[in-house]
């Protein structure tokens, strides 16, 4: 990566050379508000299908890179903490962790506004946080408490944040793709000039309903971006065992596609910005994010029966998204190693505080068993297990 940066000749290069000098002089450096453009090349060029790939030269700045670092650190720490909480039996049922894939969530947010919609699968904790969900809402929901984003009624797979246009959080593999195309339909219907990103995995990529939705989206020119988060394993089945053609970015056939290094937040940002522009004018496009999850499919899966430990550690060493940004920040001297470590310490404390708060939060009131069955309950009766004992009137 260093070689390619030396090779490019951008005017900001000379400014960077001065920076170490300046930093030695200044005692107080604003490390997160500097928006001086920095040009970076993505790790690998984009591979395109039925379209022209965007440039691999990405504009960023110190503020953005430090935000990336911090946001990904929060996500990473949050998922690791969730692992511990699950093992401590404070989280029950399903828990699908996203650590390793953080660059997709943060890169995407950098290219979008909150007017754009995002919908994803059950591996939704970090995507929710990217849409301004709070840590308390995450941990409280995971532990089934009132302060959870779904008030404890949803659980790990059902996080929503409608005011940020985040539509969940879906447990049925692939269902979110037609739903996402429906969101795009509605955006077009309302003339909102915004797009929907529908995320799905390499396992879901073979679902028939995806192709049905893509067909309709292409026919009706919907502003839908289908994002395949290809972490190469659908639960325990490697992509080559599930897909005759694992070139997911090409599977749209008539729909253009782009293959992206999903561990490079800047590449993700560039691709998503490109896709948004495309979709607003020309209808659906597929983005394949080449990414990786360190955990197994869920907390019930060790993730090592179908993958070698070498593979997992290899990705962690070579391609970790947070490490990439850390190196970039250090290379451009946007912060010191200590400052970055301090950020991580801060993040750890934030996460720990949120967990402590969530633990104190009460479980939902028993009456909530019957709330929100309908938006308009019409005063009808609903029943508990023993209807002679427990009945409620739905408001």
């Amino acid at each position, binding site marked *: 990566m260093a070689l390619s940066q030396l090779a490019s000749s951008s005017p900001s290069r000379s400014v960077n050379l001065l920076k170490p000098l300046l930093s030695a002089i200044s005692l107080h450096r604003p490390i997160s508000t500097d928006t001086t453009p920095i040009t970076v090349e993505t790790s690998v060029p984009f591979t395109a299908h039925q379209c022209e790939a965007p440039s691999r030269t990405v504009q960023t700045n110190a503020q953005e890179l430090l935000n990336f670092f911090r946001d990904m650190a929060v996500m990473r720490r949050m998922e690791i903490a969730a692992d511990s909480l699950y093992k401590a039996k404070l989280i029950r049922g399903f828990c699908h962790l996203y650590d390793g894939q953080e660059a997709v969530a943060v890169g995407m947010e950098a290219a979008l506004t909150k007017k754009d*919609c995002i*919908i994803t699968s059950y591996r939704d904790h970090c995507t929710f946080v990217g849409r301004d969900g709070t840590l308390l809402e995450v941990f409280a929901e995971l532990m089934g408490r009132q302060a959870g984003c*779904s*008030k*404890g*009624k*949803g659980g790990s797979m*059902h996080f*929503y*944040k*409608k005011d940020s246009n985040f*539509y*969940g*959080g*879906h*447990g*049925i593999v692939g*269902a979110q*793709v*037609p*739903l*996402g*195309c*429906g*969101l*795009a*339909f*509605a*955006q077009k*219907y*309302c003339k909102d000039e915004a797009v929907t990103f529908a995320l799905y995995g390499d396992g879901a990529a073979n679902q*028939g*309903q995806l*192709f*049905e*939705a893509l*067909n*309709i*989206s292409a*026919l*009706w020119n919907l502003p839908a971006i289908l994002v395949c988060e290809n972490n190469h394993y659908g639960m325990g089945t490697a992509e080559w065992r599930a897909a005759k053609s694992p070139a997911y970015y090409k599977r749209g056939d008539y729909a253009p596609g782009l293959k992206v290094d999903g561990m490079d937040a800047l590449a993700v940002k560039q691709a998503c910005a490109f896709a948004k522009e495309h979709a607003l004018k020309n209808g659906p496009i597929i983005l394949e994010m080449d990414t990786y999850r360190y955990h197994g499919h869920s907390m019930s899966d060790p993730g090592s029966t179908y993958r070698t430990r070498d593979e997992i550690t290899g990705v962690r060493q070579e391609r970790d998204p947070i490490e990439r940004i850390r190196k970039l920040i250090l290379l451009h001297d946007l912060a010191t190693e200590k400052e970055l470590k301090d950020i991580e310490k801060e993040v750890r404390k934030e996460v720990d505080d949120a967990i402590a708060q969530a633990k104190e939060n009460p479980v939902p009131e028993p009456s909530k068993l019957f*709330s*929100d*069955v*309908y*938006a*308009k309950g*019409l*005063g*009808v*009766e*609903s029943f508990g297990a023993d*209807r*002679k004992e427990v009945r409620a009137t739905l408001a």
Partner: protein
Amino acid sequence: MYAIARQRILGQSFQKMRPAVSVLRSYSSAAKQITVRDALNSALDEEMSADPKVFLMGEEVGEYQGAYKITKGLLEKYGPERVLDTPITEAGFTGIGVGAAYYGLKPVVEFMTFNFSMQAIDHIINSAAKSNYMSAGQISVPIVFRGPNGAAAGVGAQHSQCYASWYASCPGLKVLSPYNSEDARGLLKAAIRDPDPVVFLENELLYGESFPVSDEVLDSSFCIPIGKAKIEREGKDVTITAFSKMVGYALKAAEILEKDGIYAEVINLRSIRPLDRSTINTSVRKTNRLVTVEEGFPQHGVGAEICASVVEESFAYLDAPVERIAGADVPMPYAANLERMAVPQIEDIVRAAKRACYRSVPLAAAA
């Protein structure tokens, strides 16, 4: 509500004097007859006119004017952005409809028949019905799924199933089934206005039938409350519950029974979920006998739920076991004589009512 109270009073005086469904009675100079098809069409038209968020989606709803002509003229009136012809991909277009409803639009998704809804049932149940609950009220789904349900004529096993009990068992859904034109108009308008997912089960064979409608029914603000059954005919000896086409059969059965001195009270359920247990139980407490009628498969059917409800709430009032008339417990056969045996006939309802009144004829020999 005021409109409905007025309607009930009108309706009840209507009932006592009206011998048969098909005979036109004009009480006001403006009493009109409209087909169920026209009733549905006008309801869709008015709701689309009143609310720009309402749009239609389905196979052949646009240029073909609707497979059963229910959506006739609507493409011309509202344009291709609001009346959308879909490919034959139920899972895909139903998911798209539900997603649009998440965003706040009000889709009316047509299934050419509800048999095809099985291709999309995950979206109806998991994406639509449960979302408001799972999101603790953040994501409501104001969608209507409508289309013909149940048996038609000679269409065979894969095209004849009744889905009322399947959908009605699911919390989060509302399930409606109109009988006449008034039901069709009022319930469809209510369904479109309702903020929750509604499964609207029509009947192909009723589309062409005409029913008298009052001026009030024809008014664009007309609406029937969801969750309230209608007593189509008052009686004192036995309660007969039915929905959709079977209401017509039950009414005819009631006329036949009257000749034998049995006065049946016919309840048109209108709403399968929520089920109007109150009206049903009140009626059974009056008559002490119950016959449930439905077209669908008998096991775990609507009648089973009604029977359980009455046994739980009004056991002491029952003078006879509850009788269930339902479709035969077999896939729908094609041959006309077998098909006739596979759906309830009027004589089945009459026989069951007489049994409930301990006036039965000896059992027929087993086939």
